[in-house]
Structure formats: C-alpha cells, structure tokens
C-alpha cells in the first residue's frame, strides 16, 4: 500500500512540475509538428508503406527526445529528494507511468496532425489507433530504463541512442507490422500474434526494470 501512495505522490509531483514549465510538452509537440510538416513539404504524397514507416520514425525520435529528459535532466538536488522520500521501485514505476501518459498524449496529437496533413487510407482505424497507443507504451517502458542507465554514464545523448536502438528495433519491427496490418484492414485475428509478443516484451521489460533499478539507484 505504501508503494501505491508513493507512486501516486511522485506521479502528481511529476505532472505538476511539467505543468509549471510545460517544457517537454511544448518542446516535443513543436518538434513533432515541425517534423511532420517538413516531411509533408518534401514528400507531398506518399505510398502507404512509406506513410506508415515515416510516422513511426518520427515517433521514435520524439520518444527518444522526450524520455531522455526523464533522468538525464534531473538536478542533483531533486534526485536526493526522491531518494529520501520514496523507494526505488516507486520511482521507476512512477517514471514509466508518467512517460507512458506523456507519450500516449503526444502520439495521439501527432497521429491526428499527421493524418490531417498527409492524406492516407487506413483500413482499420481503431486497430491503427490501438497500435499507436501500444507503440507509445512500449517506447516509454523501454526508454525509461535506458535513460536511467545513460544518465549514470556521463549524461550524453549519443550513448542514449546507441544503447536504446538495438533494444527498440524488435519493438519497432513488430509495431510497423501491426500497424501495416491495420492499414490493410486485415482481419483482427491476424494481428493477435504481434499484439501478444508486444505485450510480452512490455511485461518483461517492466519486470526487468523493476528488478534492476534498485541497483542502479543505490549510488
């Protein structure tokens, strides 16, 4: 029970801080919108395959930019404060949940804007949206732990990219396949495999993060 109250408290704290500065929200939103616009200006129209891949590449980089900040840009003082008030498990869960919410919001807005600017037929709109949500969740669960690891190592962004790409590629392969199925309007039972494996990856990654984060935190 103590864990849940701690998580709640940290989550609220995180949101209040974000709401005060609106740094991540505005910054990432602007990043996504301008990337989409640049892509629109350079592509004009795209075949469906490119449309899908492009969207996920934009989302991938937006996610890296957004989530790197979750540990790397924390000040020493605030980390010390967290250390005193909460257990490491509570901190990592709160961070993962917060990043998930942030990414879900971000990718919903991005999808909305993207599909307005780029005209494209999507066969199964609901499944595509589900794929986007699932993608946002997977990105945040993987990147949160990597960001924690990278923040301990000289805080540079290059390391974050190097460490996260090999881990995220299987996720991205699955998501692109899932969303392609949705675009082609295939029967939903076809996509069950991908959804199952994605959920499994998420569960594994979150469990491993929970087990490992305490070691990373104690320093």
């Amino acid at each position, binding site marked *: 029970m103590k864990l849940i109250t701690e998580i709640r408290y940290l989550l609220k704290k995180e949101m209040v801080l974000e709401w005060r500065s609106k740094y991540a929200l505005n910054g990432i939103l602007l990043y996504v919108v301008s990337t989409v616009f640049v892509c629109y200006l350079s592509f004009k129209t795209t075949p469906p395959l490119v449309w899908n891949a492009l969207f996920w590449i934009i989302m991938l980089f937006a996610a890296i930019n957004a989530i790197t900040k979750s540990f790397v840009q924390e000040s020493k003082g605030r980390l010390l404060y967290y250390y005193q008030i909460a257990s490491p498990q509570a901190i990592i869960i709160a961070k993962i949940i917060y990043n998930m919410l942030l990414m879900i919001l971000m990718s919903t807005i991005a999808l909305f804007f993207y599909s307005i600017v780029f005209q494209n037929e999507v066969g199964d709109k609901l499944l595509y949206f589900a794929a986007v949500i699932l993608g946002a969740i997977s990105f945040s669960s993987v990147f949160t*732990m990597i960001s924690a690891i990278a923040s301990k190592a000289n805080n540079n962004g290059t390391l974050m990219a190097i460490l996260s790409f*090999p881990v995220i590629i299987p996720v991205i392969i699955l998501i692109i396949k899932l969303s392609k199925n949705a675009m082609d309007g295939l029967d939903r039972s076809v996509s069950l495999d991908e959804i199952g*494996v994605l959920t499994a990856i998420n569960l594994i990654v979150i469990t491993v993060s929970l087990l490992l984060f305490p070691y990373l935190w104690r320093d």
Partner: protein
Amino acid sequence: MSKNWWKITASVFVLYSVVTGLLLKVPMLPILHESIRNLYFHVPMWFAMIVIYTIAVVNSIRYLQTNDEKYDLIAVESVNTGLLFGFIGLLSGMIWANFTWGSPWPNDPKLNSAAIATLMYLAYTVLRSSLDEEQKRAKISAIYNIFAFPVMVVLLFVLPRLTDSLHPGNGGNPGFGAYDLDSNMRFVFYPAVLGWIGIAIWIMNIRFRIRKLENIKNQI
C-alpha cells in the same frame, strides 16, 4: 591433466566433426548440394554465441549480487568472445547465403535479428568504454547486459518464427529434423555444437585469465 578434460573433449569433438563432416554422406538436396556440410561449421557458431552470452548474463547477475570484480571480468570477456563468434557466424553465413540464396544479405529475419543482437553487444562495449570508474562501470554495464538479454532472446527466437524466413525451422519451413532424420547428420552435428561451445568457453576462460593478470599488474 584432470582439469583439462573438457578442453580435450571439446577439441576431439571439433576434430571429429571436421573429418566426419567432410566425409560422411549427406542427404542429396537441390540448391544446397554439398554445401549442406556448412551446417556442421556455421550453425555451431550461433550455438556457441548464445551459450557464451548466457554465461555473460549469469555472471552479470552474480556480480550485482556479490559485487565481486571476478564476475564482471567473466561477463565482459564472455561478451567479447560472443562478439567474435557472432561475427564469424555472420560472415560465414553471408558466404553460404551468397551461394544458396543468391545474395550475401537476403532480407531474412534471422540475419537481421543476428545483426541487431551483435549491435546490442557492441553497444555494451561502447557503454563500458564511456565509463572510467571501475565499480560504476562494472555495475552499470551489468545492468545493461541483463536488461538487453531478454530482448535478445525475443529477437533471436521469437521474431524469426513470426515471419517468413529462408532458414529451416522458421515461417513454416521444415526444421533440421526433416533433413537429418534419414541420415547420419545428427552424429556429426551434435558433437560439432558441443565441441564449439567448449572451444568458445575455453577462449573466454583464457581471455578472462589474461585480463585478471593485467588487472593485477595495473594495480601494482
């Protein structure tokens, strides 16, 4: 001498697989022809790599539990040896693929997965080199190693099964069993796998001992 028994066994297995792998009869299959014998040499590289990466992750876990530097050294040398076998496996596979599938890098999920897994462990070495302080380096790289391992398992064992692949045993293709049921291939293949796993562990062991000596020397 009694301590060396596994090294000798591994050597005998490898030598046995070289002789029988070239001489024993193999099933006559179109496209593959005699190149099916590569099975005895190319596939064991992957088995050795996976076993050695598993050793790395086990030692990373042991390091986090005990904080004993020894386990960190075993883990890093396992990754180095695993990378060696991964590269050999990739290159030998490319030569074979060029002959049977028409190009050195056919868009095959197993190839891509293997390349990504190799990237993952290269990232591990980059992470290590970016950290200076020994204890911190050992701890953080152990954490990354454990974090990356389950993803690698998904990458190598689950993803290729979901998509069509040229490799046997994936995407509805028959597994090895279909080829070697009617032949003696098993009597060569399994010893070859065991032998190469032994050789890989041996190389890792040698590297680990060299590194330990270097560490002692550096401390003085």
